[in-house]
């Protein structure tokens, strides 16, 4: 069960800020970020990938679960 970070409903660029902080401190190499819009999905994915993480997007209703592994 990976760590979950809820970024739903947050304005740009808060999902990216939270994700970067989470990725910097995550020791387990597994984290899931939840966002609620396509812009956050794209921006957070890009941010994680730029930090060397792999991102898998899962649609969950109207939200997006971004499963990240390093």
């Amino acid at each position, binding site marked *: 069960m990976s*760590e979950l*970070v809820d970024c*739903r409903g947050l*304005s*740009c*660029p808060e999902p990216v800020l*939270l994700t970067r902080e989470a990725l910097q401190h995550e020791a387990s190499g597994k984290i899931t970020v939840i966002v609620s819009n*396509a812009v956050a999905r794209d921006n957070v994915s890009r*941010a994680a990938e*730029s930090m060397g993480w792999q991102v898998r997007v899962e649609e969950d209703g109207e939200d997006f679960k971004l499963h990240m592994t390093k």
Partner: protein
Amino acid sequence: MRDRLFIIIAGAVTGLLAVILVMQGNPANMGFCIACFIRDIAGGLGLHRADVVQYLRPEIMGLVIGAFATAMWVKEFKATGGSSPVLRFILGMLMMAGALIFLGCPLRMVLRLAGGDWNALIALPGYVFGVWLGTLFLRRGYTLGRSQDQSTVNGYTGPFIAVILLILLLTTPAFIFFSEAGPGSMQAPLVLTLGAGLVVGILAQRTRLCTMGAIRDLILFKDYQLFLGFAAITVVAFFGNVVTGQFLPGFAEQPVAHIDTLWNFSGMTVVGIAAVLAGGCPMRQLILTGEGQGDALMTVLGMGAGAAFMHNFGMAGSPAGVSPAGQWIVIISLVLLFIIGAGNIKMRSLSQAKTKAKAS
């Protein structure tokens, strides 16, 4: 790589259309100005009575409708809202106040630069400074809170308002004001102004173009994607102006501009801070409105109200400079922005976001 190319194209098209719009009748160096145009719409509706700036600018309606149609098409439309609506309204007012002091939103700022208006060279560092100040709040956990899903009616409201404004423009009822002189009387033909708005609305929705994000992301993340779009607008508009003879360099007697260094700088500082705290530059707010974000619509409504206040109380800048009342507004705006920023720091934290995830 493909995203970067796309946003460069989006910026290039925006810059090109801006040059064409001016050639075909828009005020000089004002192919697009989100602040001026919302102010003109406020005037058209009689919310202020500055009779040289009253016109229902179709570029604004086009941006919203173009973004709306695109969002619907790619299934990114989502009716949301409820994130500190009052503060967003105020931020919109403050964003407009700063822009009307400088006489341009950030988009017009780069278009003025591309036209040789060197006063924009003073404003640009002011804007960057403001964005930087805004990031200080972001880094300390500033947030206006989470938005929630809203009913579809909420999401359609912004696009609906845009359509109504378009109908009012086309039917010219007696209660709508149309400037007979000054910038409000200068416009390119409707097919161009509306068409350009629609095209940029589509491109800006797809590429997330944002003049504030362009600076902010460089500062926060060293991410230059949005900046590419921002630069493309400027570079293409510059070349377009040179080729069409619209590049007229200088400080003095620039069109719809003044040479007040301190207030050009600080007016755009206000815009920079407000845009960061509101999550988007003026144009981005219009695009987000088209995507169904009630929070962005609140900001846009605030911009309209701010424009009305600024002109009713003689605070807006003019080619003659900035009145004492306008100078006070800049200072008051900075104080209010500080209060809004500081009052909402530490509202966001990673631990809170993790706890919330576990709870849901």
